């Protein structure tokens, strides 16, 4: 029994160490929260903002949550608490309700599924709380603001380039995000209207749902490579999946000239563009979203404005300008 307890203790200590060296952000919130509580009403008002993330296990959502925390450090009058919706509508809706009950001054919602969160966001607005939706916005709620990137445009900038780049009578494969996801559907729709409708000569030899995942994309690409001697382009709805498909053919001379398109502008994608493997991607910058979110929160909370709807830019990243984005990721520590 003593041995058992000793082992358990070691484990808990080890966990503590893990927590210590990796989660600077969470400690900083607690500190910020304490100062806020101590300062109370006597000093300038400190606004409490609840940031309700779609899922901390989703790498883009996690990047965005981290960026929001970093950006919040720049504002003395705002403290942000992050909540994890765990990619579950029910949990996320519960978190919004809790935030209303806890009388947060502002609630930022990154929906798991816009329509499922809509009534709860409306409740927050009705409770007189500053409410902002982001990535993706829930549109058409009276009194709610939004900061987003336009998924149609993100795919379009790539599709516009592809119309010129993809050869005549090309054979392409398409990797899709989770069905029903707003960004996944809008990006595919954009590729349809901006590329496939304009290029009837192009044939899709494979199209599968890889759920944004690199490993699932790899499995599909491995199979397609077996079945097709000719694949001219990989059209992926995000960078993870494009990277997975490229991983499969990286040493295959037959596909050395393949074109590949993604969306997001992740660190990995930028490196692949630099190596000449990925053709292009468009940046969905978590930093730009976070900047927009905090600026919007600040303006709404201090009463400068009552409703704001903004879209961040989605610049196309190609070999010509990739250096600048690699620099951005280096600063963030995502690339050594």
């Amino acid at each position: 029994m003593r041995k058992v307890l000793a082992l358990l203790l070691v484990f808990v200590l080890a966990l503590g160490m893990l927590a210590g060296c990796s989660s600077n952000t969470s400690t900083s919130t607690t500190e910020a929260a304490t100062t806020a509580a101590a300062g109370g009403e006597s000093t300038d008002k400190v606004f409490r903002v609840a940031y309700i993330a779609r899922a901390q296990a989703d790498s883009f959502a996690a990047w965005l949550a981290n960026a929001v925390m970093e950006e919040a450090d720049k504002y003395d009058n705002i403290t942000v608490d992050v909540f994890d919706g765990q990619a579950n509508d029910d949990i996320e809706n519960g978190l919004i309700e809790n935030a209303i009950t806890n009388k947060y001054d502002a609630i930022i919602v990154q929906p798991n599924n816009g329509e499922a969160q809509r009534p709860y966001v409306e409740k927050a607005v009705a409770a007189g709380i500053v409410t902002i939706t982001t990535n993706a916005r829930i549109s058409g709620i009276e009194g709610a603001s939004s900061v987003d990137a336009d998924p149609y445009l993100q795919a379009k900038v790539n599709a516009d380039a592809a119309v010129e780049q993809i050869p005549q009578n090309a054979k392409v494969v398409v990797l899709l995000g989770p069905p029903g996801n707003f960004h996944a559907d809008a990006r595919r729709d954009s590729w349809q209207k901006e590329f496939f409708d304009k290029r009837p000569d192009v044939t899709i030899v494979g199209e599968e749902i890889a759920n944004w995942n690199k490993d699932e994309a790899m499995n599909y690409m491995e199979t397609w490579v077996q079945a097709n001697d000719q694949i001219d382009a990989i059209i992926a709805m995000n960078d993870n999946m494009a990277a997975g498909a490229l991983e499969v053919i990286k040493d295959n001379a037959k596909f050395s000239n393949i074109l590949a398109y993604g969306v997001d502008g992740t660190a990995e994608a930028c490196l692949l563009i630099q190596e000449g493997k990925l053709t292009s991607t468009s940046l969905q910058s978590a930093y730009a979203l976070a900047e927009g979110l905090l600026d919007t929160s600040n303006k709404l909370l201090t009463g400068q404005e009552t409703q704001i709807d903004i879209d961040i830019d989605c610049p196309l990243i190609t070999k010509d300008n990739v250096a600048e984005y690699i620099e951005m990721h280096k600063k963030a520590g995502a690339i050594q």
Partner: protein
Amino acid sequence: MNSLLQKIKKSNLMATFSIYFVLLFLFLISMMANENFATIGNLSNISRQIAVGTILAFGQTILIISGMLDLSSGSVLALAGVLSVDAYLKTGSLIVSFLVGIIVAVICNILNGLMVTKFKTPPFIATLAMMAMARGAALLYTNGQNIYQIGDYVIFGQGSWFGVPNPVWFLVITMTVTWYLLKHTVFGRSVYAIGGNEEAANASGINVDRVKMKAYIINGIFVGLAGIIFMSRVNGGLPNGANGYEFKALTAAVIGGTSFSGGVGTASGTLAGAFIVGFLDNIMVLVGVNSYLQQIVRGAIIALAVIYDIYFKTTRKKNKAAKG
């Protein structure tokens, strides 16, 4: 002629090998459905694709036979894999990173084992708790971000030896180890005895807790290995990777004839189960079956394979009873 057929039907042949007939049948159908299916390249792909899930499934097989299971294997895989990748980036040593991966997964499974044996927690609950903790730890350690630029670490999952991909070598090794442990060791016999009837096993002098702990430790080694292969294959440390792989592993084991009531199961059956799922996923993509339909077909075939297997096993029992 007729009597010969009946003899085959009544003999143990069909019953013992029923799952392999399902596999063979699926192979032949797939071969007819698409000319690219039965190529060396494609079969090598399938083996590589199922390797990670199947290595997990061997660990599950030993656990399920002894009346337990591991819901944490996908999450522990991610934690072990991420820490292993990080160890490689920090030390530059493949051996150190390999050991880190295995040790992390073994520690998690020792904790699983302790919860089950010392604190008498049902394995379902104990490993469910570990599933959440390990995933949380992996995400916390990486701040939810993928680790890139892992260099030569990719050798474990992308390299090959004598023309055979490394993951397939690992698959063969774990399969052999599992088969040997189950068939030819006292530990293996104890595993079946405990799964068949724990109290009887205890009464006959088997140290039940020790065997259970050993089963979790072996599972841990397999999970760690799977984590290393997974991260290496995807060329990155993905804290969110291998989500739901515990169910892939359970599915392979159960299709392969491992019984959740304990005491029944084999390593080769699990391998066959994994290949059934692997063939099915592959041929549906080759033929271009609609993605939504694929999920329905996958579910239906799993149900059919198991019904078929159970049908032949029960007729064998009836035959035996009739003879006896």
